[in-house]
């Protein structure tokens, strides 16, 4: 499976394994992940709950050292958070600084980027506008609803104008309509700015609608179970695309994969054929 397209490889994950030693027993969150993202690609990542998506994202972001394997970004190995990468965390509430207003939260990374005041103001205004929170720029995060907090986190990421954007279930807390708007927003930004996006979601429709590819992770021991190319036209639209026949097909395929990932002992990064059901698999993350 080669998806590099015309661009070079942006992100290269090789044989990634992560074992948590924290608790009483060691937990192998990810067993062996190998995949790569071309520059400017938009890839969605789906997989059963607890299969290690967040772990993977944190390893890619350089926030955690993998137990073994490597992550390379634009050819250089990642050991610390690389510049020009933005992350939207699953725990959106805790990733906002309670002591800063919404505006300050969005502006802070820009300050670190040493942008001029005017440019910062512009970016902040634009991104807050994009997520529909202009009126709440001066509120504190804890004065916002869950979905609004999540949108602040998104605004912060897009205002940052990153080259690589990692998003961990970024639309989990917003309503259907807003979600659709934000999906379109992400695609617009992606197309306009050529940013490489790795997008974790549980919503299969969303994964297919958004991505150029969908990576399906198995349940643990976690490997890449499938890598599905989404051959829909680049120009997508909430109404027509979702009614497209190919969309429905892809959707069904991903759904089947996930179901299988959840039920089966996804052992090899293989196609959707060779799986034997094993109900206890979900419980098998703990390695002794």
């Amino acid at each position, binding site marked *: 499976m080669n998806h590099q397209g015309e661009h070079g490889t942006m992100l290269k994950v090789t044989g990634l394994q992560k074992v948590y030693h924290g608790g009483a027993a060691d937990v192998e969150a990810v067993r062996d992940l190998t995949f790569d993202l071309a520059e400017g690609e938009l890839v969605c990542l789906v997989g059963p709950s607890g299969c290690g998506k967040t772990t993977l994202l944190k390893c890619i972001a350089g*926030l955690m050292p993998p137990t073994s394997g490597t992550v390379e970004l634009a050819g250089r190995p990642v050991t610390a*958070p690389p510049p020009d990468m*933005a992350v939207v965390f699953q725990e959106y509430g*805790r990733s906002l*600084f309670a*002591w800063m207003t919404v505006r300050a939260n969005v502006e802070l*990374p820009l300050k670190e980027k040493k942008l001029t005041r005017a440019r910062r103001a512009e970016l902040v205004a634009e991104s807050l506008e994009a997520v529909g929170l202009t009126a709440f720029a001066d509120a504190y995060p804890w004065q916002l609803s869950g979905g609004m907090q999540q949108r602040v986190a998104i605004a912060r990421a897009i205002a940052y104008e990153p080259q690589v954007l990692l998003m961990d279930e970024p639309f989990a807390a917003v309503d259907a309509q807003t979600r659709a708007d934000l999906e379109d927003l992400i695609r617009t930004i992606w197309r306009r700015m050529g940013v490489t996006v790795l997008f974790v979601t549980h919503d299969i429709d969303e994964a297919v609608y958004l991505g150029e590819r969908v990576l399906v992770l198995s349940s643990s021991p976690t490997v890449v179970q499938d890598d599905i190319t989404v051959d829909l036209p680049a120009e997508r639209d909430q109404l027509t695309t979702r009614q497209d026949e190919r969309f429905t097909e892809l959707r069904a395929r991903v759904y089947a994969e996930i179901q299988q990932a959840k039920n089966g002992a996804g052992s090899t990064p293989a196609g959707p054929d060779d799986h034997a059901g094993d109900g206890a698999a979900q419980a098998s993350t703990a390695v002794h």
Partner: protein
Amino acid sequence: MTATSTDSRAPDPPAPARSPRRPARAGLGRPLLGAVGILALLGLWEAVPRLGVVSARYLPPATDVLAALGVRATTPGFWTAVGDTLAGWALGLAIAFTAAVVLGFTLGALPRIRAYTNSTVDFLRPIPSVALIPLAVLLYGTDLRSTLLLVVYACFWLIYIQVLYGVADVDPVAEQTARSYGLGRLARVRYVVWPTTLPYLMTGVRLAAAVALILSITAQLVIGSPGIGREIAVAQSSGAVESVYALIVATGALGVVINIGVRVLERRVLRWHTSVRGEATA
């Protein structure tokens, strides 16, 4: 209810009747309650000697002591003493604060180096300032610097330990967010670690403010540099019980005033914190 909810900037005064109620409570109610507390204490104090639980000769009733304090407060000497005490207090606290914050943040961020200092810190902390008095006098004589040495030594540890605990309390998700957005070490300290530590630091400052006062007075008491402490020493060795208590009351009052100051500061800088905002909302 055909509300014009179209424009957010539309002046739409919401339930204005409710707004004034809170400031009124917050602004007036609390000090009132505090005054009740103080009055209760004074009442108890008045009653104990009057009822003969302890002899009035050794614990004069509150009214007598307040009267004595009133008389004293009209003399300029008293206010010079207060000034001297506060000078030692403020300077000592400032030095301790700066040193503790700088060191606390530095070592808090460098756990490896900190591991080497723990034993020494634990060893030095329990050494009483009071026992350092001869050394202080030897080094700096009886002037302000001696007092400062004692104040700084005692207060430093308080703030330092609080800062260390505060630094350890940073929310990992917030910290990771900052790191992933490329915030450097200094920026992280400023925007993430500092705000998280603030509540701890505030407690440290409140603790240290009182300890600084205590030590600046104790130093004056023992070394004899000018200030309330020396006044207490003189009154004590003269057997002037009422004066002693009057000065103690003055000290306590200083403590209350200082605390009010810190609380006001806290309400400003910790507006966002659960402990402060919890009281404002809901």
